[in-house]
């Protein structure tokens, strides 16, 4: 039990970069980017194949980052310059990447067993923690730079930032590229930790990313950027923990996981709404009682 929970925290940390990537597009840029399902695998494929060919694992992972950024760049260009709807741009890239990933790998499954590995002789938990926290902090800093501020303003109020001379096509492209770079890096990390890549490993990744963001924000809050990126990292871990626990429920197995993911997201979306509705009601009830009392003590409604 404990080892499986520890394993969940471990993979949660590796998936955290993917969740941060999804956070950039979905929350900061307000751009629902589905490229993720493809670029996650792209990152894994690049890391695996390069390592198999003798590239040092760290360098391979950096190449995953770059590969993901290029995929995001394409999606960004399709949307901003090609004027293709955002959702559709992502879907187009996702499908294109499916073939590209197969080309990179040469076959649907590639194993890393017995090869050099990023985690050779290292504690996965520790390395994962350092990478996740490091990227989180760098991202916090980035969002305070002038580029970062205009990227946030693009998602918050496009018309306003345009009137201040920022090129929103550019900020959108930067955001989507950075997002997919992180997603691909996450894919590379997962490839190293599972010792393999297969062409379907990215399927449904966007939903897991959204689930992590939504759960994280619901549990840990989103009052500032610092807080929100922390919440997203913790959300990715929380998702893995819930996943591991759900698998332990008798009668559940891996094929039910997509359904469980859907239920988790609905829960994370609905619970805050219910909670604030209940809160509102109790506040107004209390206030109404006060008013009634006040009126009564004055002796009737005047």
């Amino acid at each position, binding site marked *: 039990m404990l080892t499986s929970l520890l394993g969940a925290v471990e993979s949660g940390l590796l998936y955290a970069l993917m969740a941060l990537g999804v956070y950039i597009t979905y929350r900061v840029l307000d751009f629902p980017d589905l490229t993720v399902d493809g670029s996650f695998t792209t990152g894994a494929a690049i890391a695996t194949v390069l390592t198999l060919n003798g590239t040092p694992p760290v360098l391979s992972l950096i190449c995953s980052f770059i590969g993901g950024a290029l995929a995001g760049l394409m999606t960004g260009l399709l949307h901003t310059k090609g004027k293709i709807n955002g959702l559709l741009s992502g879907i187009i890239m996702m499908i294109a990447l499916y073939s590209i990933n197969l080309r990179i790998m040469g076959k649907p499954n590639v194993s890393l067993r017995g090869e050099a590995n990023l985690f050779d002789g290292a504690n996965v938990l520790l390395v994962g923690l350092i990478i996740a926290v490091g990227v989180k902090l760098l991202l916090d800093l980035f969002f305070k730079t002038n580029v970062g501020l205009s990227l*946030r303003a693009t998602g918050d109020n496009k*018309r306003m930032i345009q*009137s*201040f*001379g*920022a*090129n929103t096509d550019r900020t959108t492209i930067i955001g989507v590229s950075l997002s997919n770079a992180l997603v691909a890096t996450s894919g590379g990390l997962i490839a190293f930790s599972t010792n393999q890549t297969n062409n379907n490993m990215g399927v449904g990744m966007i939903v897991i990313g959204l689930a992590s963001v939504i759960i994280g924000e619901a549990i840990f809050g989103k009052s500032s950027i610092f807080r929100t990126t922390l919440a997203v990292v913790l959300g990715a871990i929380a998702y893995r923990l819930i996943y591991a626990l759900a698998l332990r429920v008798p009668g559940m197995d891996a094929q039910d996981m997509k359904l469980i993911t859907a239920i988790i997201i609905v829960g994370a979306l609905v619970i805050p709404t219910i909670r604030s509705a209940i809160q509102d009601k109790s506040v107004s009830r209390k206030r109404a009682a006060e008013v009634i009392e006040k009126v009564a003590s004055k002796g009737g409604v005047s």
Partner: protein
Amino acid sequence: MLHIKEVSKLFNPGTIDEKVALLKADLQLKQGDFVTIIGSNGAGKSTLMNIISGVLKPDIGVVEIDGNDVSSLPEHKRSQWIGRVFQDPMAGTAPRMTIEENLAVAYKRGQSRGFSFGVTKKTKMIFREELSRLGIGLENRMNAKVGLLSGGERQALSLLMATFTRPQILLLDEHTAALDPARAELVTDLTEKIVKDLNLTTLMVTHNMEQAIRLGNRLIMMDKGQIILQVNEDRKSELTVERLLGEFEQISGKKMADDRVVLG
């Protein structure tokens, strides 16, 4: 310094929904001119603003700033010379960012945005000083999210953001229309002060006749896409609301039809 040369603009040309939003509109402003614009609904006032700022491109005609044809420049390039405040208090600021972050975005108008920090000790001091000029206490709330501000506070902030990098031209499109009278008054006073202090060339659309007469040194009246009346500096001081409405009826042959008109 700003010359709008015979600009025409059609919406949905050639269809049954065709609308002539501007028809050979011609306007020339000197440095420091403050022009108020009045006119009925759909007269083309907002279209004129959008043509100047580059949101819309003229079908025919040219926009010149300082003698340079800027007609083909997109909005984000023109914005180095042009500051804008919109009617909607939500439009001019980013609600999920703090006051100081909004100011940092505005501070970089017309400059490239690199990887240096937007809010630093130095810029913070500048922001604080500028905010205190508004006199509404925003300098003590620089870390507050702008979404928490009232409409009037937001509009005052928008005005500051639009002007504090000293653009050459300031465009105000009914920027007080969504505010209650007291806040509208406040923002109007701030506008007057800022325009005077910075000697900005300004175009201001308003539905308040009294305001249109009181503010600025020139006034234009628009109807059906045309500038039907121009009142210049010397004549503006003698203008009254009655005379203005009388002029409108005489020229256009109808009463001023404006659902938001305020006589003063």
